[in-house]
């Protein structure tokens, strides 16, 4: 009955169809093509990674398939993409993120594709992961995350071949490495601390010593041994005897990562503690001046290679010989001082038991 079939066709609908098409193309041009055009494209920054191998002239080496040869970390990047780490880990730091290192800029990613920015953070951000942990930690953590971070829900990647594992760890160590190693970035660690809390910072300025001086560092070392060594160890390696029984281990300050901390970041961390861990809020106990001495000391601890601890320090007296530990009498007074502060009955100079006396004990005055 073909003859009965009327042909109505597109009559009257051509214009709407054209509008729909034109709109789409315009939007695509504006939102995708333009950002990718030469004029708009951001140049690589000096932190941009190149995951390819170069010959001595700085030219990329071409492999058999005609593509640039990937470096170890470059192959690791491919493993990272293949294994889908991006579903749980992002790779950009936001201004409000505390603890994740320097912020990133568009050009830092210029040479990478596909993007691994990520939209979900079931785990921590990894943009500045390089240098935070030793290789051995990464391998162990990837194979059995729960042995290293109790309660972690990161899947185990025990099925990775040895080669893939090595590449992946090399990639993790490359992340943010250039930012970390840039001397310019020393001390400009953009961590999150409440600048706006003026009362806090004003108070901190009171009697602030010169934190770059050796004397201040010396003074800090004494305070550190008295207050911190039980957890962080006598040399700040995170291996104090207390650490043995802790889920969240105390920080090991020899990590190169800590080089990037600014004075204020150190100060803030000591004063506020680490929420949810055993690390106390020392501002309830110590004077600002004492905490600055600690900062002066802590600054000297980070090294180029993390010192890997073999064992926890013993509580055997011999191990602590020669370390001046706070006399019992003073410790009791500290407790009182802390309580007084907690209950709001603290006075600036309660009968000679102020910070300066303690420092006198440990650093020989100033």
């Amino acid at each position, binding site marked *: 009955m073909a003859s009965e079939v009327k042909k*109505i066709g*597109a009559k009257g609908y051509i214009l709407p169809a054209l509008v729909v098409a034109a709109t789409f193309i315009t939007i695509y041009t504006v939102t995708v093509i333009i950002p*990718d055009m030469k004029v708009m494209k951001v140049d690589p920054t000096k932190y941009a990674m190149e995951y390819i191998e170069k010959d001595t002239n700085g030219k990329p080496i071409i492999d058999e398939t005609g593509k640039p040869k990937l470096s170890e970390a470059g192959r690791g990047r491919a493993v990272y993409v293949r294994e889908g780490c991006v579903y749980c880990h*992002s790779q950009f730091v936001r201004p409000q993120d505390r603890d994740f290192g320097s912020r990133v800029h568009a050009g830092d990613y210029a040479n*990478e*594709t596909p993007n691994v920015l990520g939209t979900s953070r079931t785990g921590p951000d990894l943009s500045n992961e390089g240098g935070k942990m030793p290789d051995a930690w990464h391998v162990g953590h990837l194979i059995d995350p729960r042995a290293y971070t109790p309660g972690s829900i990161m899947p185990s990647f025990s*099925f990775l071949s040895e080669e893939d594992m090595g590449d992946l760890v090399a990639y993790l160590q490359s992340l943010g490495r250039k930012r970390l190693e840039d001397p310019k970035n020393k001390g400009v660690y953009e961590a999150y601390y409440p600048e706006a809390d003026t009362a806090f910072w004003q108070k901190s300025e009171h009697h602030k010593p010169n934190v770059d001086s050796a004397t201040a560092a010396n003074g800090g070392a004494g305070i550190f041994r008295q207050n911190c060594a039980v957890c962080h160890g006598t040399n700040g390696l995170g291996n104090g005897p207390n650490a043995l029984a802790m889920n969240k281990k105390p920080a090991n300050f020899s990590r190169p990562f800590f080089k990037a901390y600014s004075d204020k970041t150190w100060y803030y961390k000591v004063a506020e503690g680490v929420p949810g861990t055993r690390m106390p809020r020392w501002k309830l106990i110590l004077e600002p001046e004492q905490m600055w001495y600690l900062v002066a000391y802590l600054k000297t601890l980070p090294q180029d290679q993390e010192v890997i601890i073999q064992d926890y320090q013993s509580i055997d007296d011999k191990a602590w010989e020669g370390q001046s530990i706070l006399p019992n009498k003073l410790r009791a007074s500290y407790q009182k001082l802390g309580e007084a502060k907690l209950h709001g009955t603290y006075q600036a100079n309660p009968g000679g038991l102020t910070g300066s006396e303690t420092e006198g004990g440990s650093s020989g005055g100033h």
Partner: protein
Amino acid sequence: MINNKFLSSQEGSSAKYFMLSAIVWLVIGMGLGLLGALEFSFPDLTKGISQLSFTHIRPAHVNMVAFGWLSMANIGSCLYIIPALCKTKLFSEKLANFACHVWNLVIGLGCWSLMNGYTEGREYAELREPFDILVLVGLLLLSYNLFRTVLNRQVEKLYVSVWYIMGAFFWMPLVYIVGNRTFVAMDGLNDGILNWFYGHNILGLWFTVLGVGIAYYMVPKMSGKPIWSHSLSMLGFWTIAFFYAPTGTHHLLQSPVPEWAKALAVIFSAALVIPVITVLTNFWMSMKGSWWMLSTNMPLRFVLTGALFYLFTCIQGPFQATRGINWYIHFTQWVVGHAHAALLGTFTFFVIGSLYYGLQRLTGKRIYSVRLVKWHYWLLFLGFSIFYLTLTVAGLQQSAGWALGYPVGQWSLTLPPMWFSRAVGGLMMFFSSCLFAFNIYKTLTAKQSSSDESELDMAVPVGKGGN
């Protein structure tokens, strides 16, 4: 013979095959989702088996439910709706059946390859080159087929559903081409921008447009009342066409992409309130005086529950696209909750209603068991409610952790009850889908329905004939 079986030219066969394939992928895809959810509670569940590791399950889940289930169920519905609205036959059943086989191949092999780590690495565009090409072949064939059908139509004016569906079949091939690394690759952050141009537009210019188009057909059909306002429905169409596409960058609102691109995305995201309100106003006003039907009519109940979740999704959407709120909830399970509220809560509910309605007419058989349909509804609805609520709360817990600067290892210790209750919700939904599949299987194979005629007419009516 084989030609006839695999490339049938029987009227309605392609719609039927698309719908039935979709149901199979739904069951498998939800099973994968459930396994993924369980791995949050028991992280060592599949330790050592690379195919079943969470990171391999997840893309397989997303691709299977998004392309295997939702897309194929939607396409099946379109292959039924378009000829019905145009009062003509589908241009070529053979061609559509061929596309169906191509897509099934892609979903099966593609998701298996994803589980083996063969991935492009861009979210929602994980499928590799060979599959991309096949997907595109299927899509273009379908677009051609449907456009030719519309050109052959026997009615002068195009009902709004046709606008939506034609729009989707115009946009989707384009979006697919630009979004996949097979066809377009960029460097650095532009790759991210492109990723989310694509990621957002398969949601906005494909799932949303198809889903709303189908619901625009189903609501008046199932309730027997005309759509409340045709001009409002057209306003909805044009605002989607103008406002949806530029919003992709709202997924990258805090990354270092250009600020102007973010600003553009935020403004258009806020404007998206308009199409949403027009669609919902239209559905609800059409139902005025007929709400009692929800107590008996199951397919209608599915569609309108979908509309309720559409409201939730699209209140959430524009708010979380503003910088202040995105600052807080980005990166957390809140977003995963929103994603499921959209694709599962809204569009899965829409299309399930449409499948119950369409399959009865396409096969000429009454649904096997009304009781199972009711179980399906309640398990899915309650399971999803648990799932959605849990993820929203988990998201707020995570946000609080980020905002206060707590270490991840600390706040994540508070989440296990949430992971567990999500898995419970997932189990209920998975089970409901099994019931759904069983019911449909029985409908096709059993001689007659186990429920009696009057019950069937109340609960899953075939509707009056004609259009």
